């Protein structure tokens, strides 16, 4: 038995006497992580392949150059050079960030009281309220944008309504085809992304904390500022990011309601893959946008963490 002593970790039966399959099975059953990953593997592999391969190739393509109808696949920084030097890209990116930032802030400001109301003042049929608040989100994005086109348009609901009421003579032109229209439409479209995280963080607050604060002499306003608001901040922070990041990459809303002044960076990216037909430039712009978004997200998360530490 001397030889098998070193391997006999499973008691008196030496491992060498078991079949290989049985030994593998024991190893497999001992490791929870291994079993977990085995079960997770189909999902993980699909998602990794589905994201990593395209991203890797997109990064590669961003260093290629378009020559007429052909793509030159030798390494070149030309695209990045023009992305940085050309003022149009910078202007579009800055405008996109401004529009999305405004949109994120406005959505959160509007949604917070709503989430607060449902979390604290709705006692029966809460589920119904939650579904009501999130339902429009699940209906066609395109149709919702189109609905705002009807509402804001030159002959739209607001203008024709106001005109028939005699309040205005001329249609209000700033409504449609402007950055304002983009912000309004996006706020409407992404409301659910603010409502849900804020609601969840509010709902999680232990009600006895509020009673304790009241007991310790805080009025409603102080209670809100000193207990409710700090405890719901994680939801607010998450909501801002969840809205800001995807909206920067939206090109449908600006295309339909933005007009020339409401065009965003994603429209430019889309154009590169469409009528401009300069895919490498499109890939470069997409990557620049991703990098900028990642930096903003990381700084934002870092700042909010610092802020949270500073408060507590």
């Amino acid at each position, binding site marked *: 038995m001397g030889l098998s002593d070193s391997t006999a970790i499973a008691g008196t039966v030496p491992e060498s006497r078991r079949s290989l399959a049985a030994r593998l099975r024991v190893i497999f059953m001992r490791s929870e992580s291994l079993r977990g990953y085995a*079960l997770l593997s189909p999902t993980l592999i699909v998602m990794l392949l*589905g994201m990593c391969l395209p991203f890797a190739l*997109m990064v590669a393509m961003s260093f290629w150059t378009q020559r007429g109808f052909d793509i030159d696949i030798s390494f070149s920084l030309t695209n990045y050079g023009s992305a940085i030097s050309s003022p149009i890209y910078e202007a579009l990116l800055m405008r996109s960030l401004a529009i999305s930032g405004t949109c994120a802030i406005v959505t959160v400001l509007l949604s917070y009281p709503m989430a607060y109301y449902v979390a604290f003042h709705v006692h029966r049929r809460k589920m119904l309220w939650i579904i009501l608040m999130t339902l429009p989100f699940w209906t*066609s994005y395109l149709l919702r944008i189109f609905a705002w086109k009807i509402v804001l348009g030159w002959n739209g609901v607001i203008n024709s309504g106001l005109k028939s009421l005699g309040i205005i003579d001329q249609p209000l032109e700033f409504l449609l085809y402007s950055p304002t229209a983009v912000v309004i439409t996006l706020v409407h479209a992404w409301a659910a992304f603010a409502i849900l995280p804020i609601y969840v963080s509010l709902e999680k607050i232990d*009600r006895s904390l509020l009673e304790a604060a009241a007991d310790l002499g805080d009025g409603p306003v102080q209670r809100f500022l000193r207990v409710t608001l700090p405890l719901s901040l994680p939801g607010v922070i998450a909501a801002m990011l969840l809205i800001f990041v995807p909206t920067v*990459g939206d090109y449908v809303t600006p295309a339909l309601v933005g007009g020339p002044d409401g065009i965003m960076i994603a429209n430019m990216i889309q154009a590169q893959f469409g009528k401009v037909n300069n895919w490498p430039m499109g890939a470069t712009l997409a990557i620049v946008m991703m990098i900028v978004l990642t930096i903003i997200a990381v700084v934002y998360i870092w700042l909010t963490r610092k802020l949270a530490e500073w408060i507590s």
Partner: protein
Amino acid sequence: MSDVGYIRRHNRPLYFFALFYLAFLYIPVLFLPLFSFNDAIYVAFPIKGFTTAWYEQMLTNEPMHAALVNSLKVGAASSAIATMLGIFGAKAVTKYRIKGEKPVVSVIMLPLVIPGIILGVALLILLSRIGVTLSLYTVTLGHILICVPFSMATLMARFEGFDKSMEEASADLGDNVWWTFWRVTLPLVAPGVIASLLLCFTISFDEFIMAFFLAGTEPTLPIFIYGQLRFPQKLPSVLALGACILVVSFVVVFVSQWLQRRDDPAAQGLGN
């Protein structure tokens, strides 16, 4: 409501704000069905009169039907596959303590925070470089990627409260993992699975941004609609279609949300 404590008493301004908010959410959307019955080409006030002409036009619109069928196919395939992958993933992370679970789950959830255009163009580049012709299959692939996070999130919430001993009892009584899944796990998580299928289907059915890049010659419904928006004379017919989609997706989502949240104490208010 005598059981409402001091902290939870009514707040009238907040109540009106909530109503205003719901109005903001719903009124614009409700203009679609309203104008779909309006007897005028131009979508503007005042309302001219009642007609069902646009619906009749819609019924005979062959390209629209083709696009609808395409969307149904893509939606069915991507929701089924995404839900299957979601079941694997959600089961794995809720059943086992996995080393590095957080980063792994974050990777799977990544499509939630990546702008659709990025995923769309990246996939487009890959597919065109390896010579895959764009088709409904490529759209389905893209939709699977964005549906899996939703499916996982839905199912994880459902599996979280799953009593592990149910599966252990089944194994103890002689069933292997597949039989256990079929006889115990699936019946117990069925509401979550149905909710996931419905949500994924809705997402895929409405998805435009990625489909725009990945669809070949066969358009899905959103792409078809986008194409129609440029022609004012076709708008009312699109409105009729939109109204129909609206009604159907309201019903579908309502049912799926209801299924998903029915047993969720957090959604029903712990205080009750």
